[in-house]
């Protein structure tokens, strides 16, 4: 059954996170007639108006002083407690830093199933939720379902689903009772928060690497550096970039004579794909390559190819990545 679907709306800096809209769009698409409820945890200032107009059928607010700043124990208890009270068929939570932490605990409290980091959702022939998620580092995709317990819970990778604007549905706003938090003591106390500034990562330690080759004109190197910064990535380069004097040292040179890297993400610009270089990056996770030569060798070891001018692509990506 999939008649009532709840979506946990994460709030960042007072605004509803994009992941909520993505899940809403997907939920509406797979089960148009389902009643969709947006659940929002927090203190007094919840983005109720935004959620009312988002296209959900109902907005449930769980307000409590203990939910003002993020505490995994209180959030877990609140999520589980409210869900238990309303008993929806399914609950979707973003697989974000917070969602990934509180959804499992809530599932444990509710004694129900949870499929992690889903990349696709659907409806099974029996009407239940079908959940697809990667396993073995993405080598395989698993198809999961939750047959006997309710709700059916899924955490969903942010950014996977499209976000399509939905018609507002005149959603009712319900204030949920979370007074059960009054007497609870979490054992976890926030003592400090530091807004971090990303330092330069060594290229072979970075989870993401933006790499430039000779196809990137000298004046565009700084753009690549800016892109790397935006992505929290390290900047790498090929041997010819050093040979031509565009790069001053070999510290982030990638290839057999330089560093061998295995980041989760590699984005290459203007790289031809010499064997020398490819040996140093072929075990990267996701490989995206931009080159103006449609037959560039690098494309043979890439997951995605973009036949385009590197400088222009850098401009567009800098604009597109917020």
């Amino acid at each position, binding site marked *: 059954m999939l008649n009532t679907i709840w979506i946990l709306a994460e709030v960042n800096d007072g605004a509803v996170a994009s992941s909520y809209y993505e899940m809403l769009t997907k939920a509406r698409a797979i089960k148009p007639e389902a009643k969709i409820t947006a659940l929002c945890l927090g203190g007094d200032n919840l983005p109720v108006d935004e959620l009312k107009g988002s296209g959900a059928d109902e907005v449930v607010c769980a307000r409590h002083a203990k939910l003002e700043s993020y505490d995994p124990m209180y959030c877990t208890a609140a999520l589980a407690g409210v869900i238990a009270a309303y008993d929806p068929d399914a609950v979707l939570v973003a697989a974000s830093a917070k969602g990934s932490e509180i959804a499992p605990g809530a599932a444990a409290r509710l004694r129900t199933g949870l499929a992690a980091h889903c990349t696709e959702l659907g409806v099974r022939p029996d009407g239940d939720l079908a959940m697809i998620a990667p396993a073995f580092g993405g080598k395989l995709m698993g198809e999961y379902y939750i047959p006997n317990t309710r709700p059916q819970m899924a955490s969903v990778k942010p950014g996977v689903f499209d976000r399509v604007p939905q018609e507002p549905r005149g959603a009712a706003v319900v204030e949920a009772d979370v007074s059960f938090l009054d007497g609870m003591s979490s054992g976890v106390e926030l003592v400090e928060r530091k807004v971090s500034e990303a330092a330069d990562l060594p290229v072979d330690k970075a989870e993401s690497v933006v790499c430039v080759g000779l196809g990137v004109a000298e004046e565009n190197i700084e753009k690549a550096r800016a892109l790397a910064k935006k992505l929290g990535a390290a900047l790498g380069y090929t041997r010819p970039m050093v040979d031509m004097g565009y790069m001053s040292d070999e510290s982030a040179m990638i290839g*057999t*004579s330089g560093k061998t890297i295995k980041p989760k993400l590699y984005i290459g610009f203007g790289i031809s794909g010499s*064997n*020398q270089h490819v*040996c140093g990056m072929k075990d990267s996770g996701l490989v995206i390559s931009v080159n103006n030569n449609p037959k560039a060798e690098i494309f043979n070891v890439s997951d995605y190819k973009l036949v385009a001018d590197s400088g222009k692509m850098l401009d567009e990506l800098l604009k597109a990545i917020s």
Partner: protein
Amino acid sequence: MWYMNEEREQLAKMAHDFAESEIRPFVREMEEHDAFPTEIIRKAGELGLIALMFPEQIGGMGPKWVESGLMLEEFGKVSNCVANAFASIHAGCALILQTGNADLIQKVVIPAMMGTVVTASAQSEPTGGTRLDDFTCTASVENSEIVINGGKIFCTNAGHADYYTINCKTKEPYAAPFGNHTLVLVEKDTPGFKVGHIENKIGWHGSSTGQLYFNNCRVPMSNIIATFDMDEKMVAAGAFSVSILMGAAALGTAEGVFEKALAYAKERKHGDESIYDKYQAMRHRFAELKMEIELLRGLVYGVLADLDNGNYNVNIPAVAAKVKGAEICEHVASECIALCGGNGTIVENDFERYLRDAKMNCTAGMSVHHLTDMIADWLR
């Protein structure tokens, strides 16, 4: 493999991880700046790896010969030079252990086993090489001190060692208990002792090989490791342990360069296929090399297992492991360069280092010709 068990598998894995995380990042530093692996030796000592080669009586782990071989094989896969630095720790301490001088064991062997001090041992001389009769570096007794005069060449770890074992001719006339040769321990910075020119060698850039000078260098009598009438046969009798350890290192080095070349051949494309898949001639050359490696493995671990079983009558196969190890390692490295084409010849691609280091195995720790001659002698 027949000699493996769960514990040895874990040990090999640990040595492998150590080689990858501690030795490999240091290789370039060694190649470019002749840097000495002091820190690697210290860390290995801390982890108890060096202790594998030392007896339990002094706090070692054995000696556990197969385990020592596994360690040197794994180190050799990454750097023949570093693997042999560990073999030479054993060699540097072997004589002190044999003679059982408790004070020197405490002072030198145990710290060497912990990786906190470096030892060296000097035999060869500028004239006469390793012929004992021709040694001119002498030790004499004056005022209850040993006075050393003369020089040594090709001393491994020169300049980095804390303690040097010097094989001196006892200056005549001498009386019992002295014999014609006296092995003396000299500490670094002893007045009258100087380290001279460090050689620029074809390989083993992380080991320093140099000259030693002694000019009225005085050390206390307690620094005498041994004094006896020494002949070539005694040298030969002690050859097995360092030979077999060097054989294990050579095995690893052959495997290291082989795996690297094989991976390259499988990666490198000609058209749609890898060069390995495309050319039968290439596959067969790899197969031939693999067979040589497996022959060497059988020899090396056969001897090591014999030693673990208390059978020390292994002179010929142990020395053979060093000689054949040097030959096979050099041959495999040379062939692998050829099999990798242009990329094989490029210094940064790190194939040629294996060949240069392999070449050192032909001479260091007694030359293969000397060792071959020893085997011939044993066959008389």
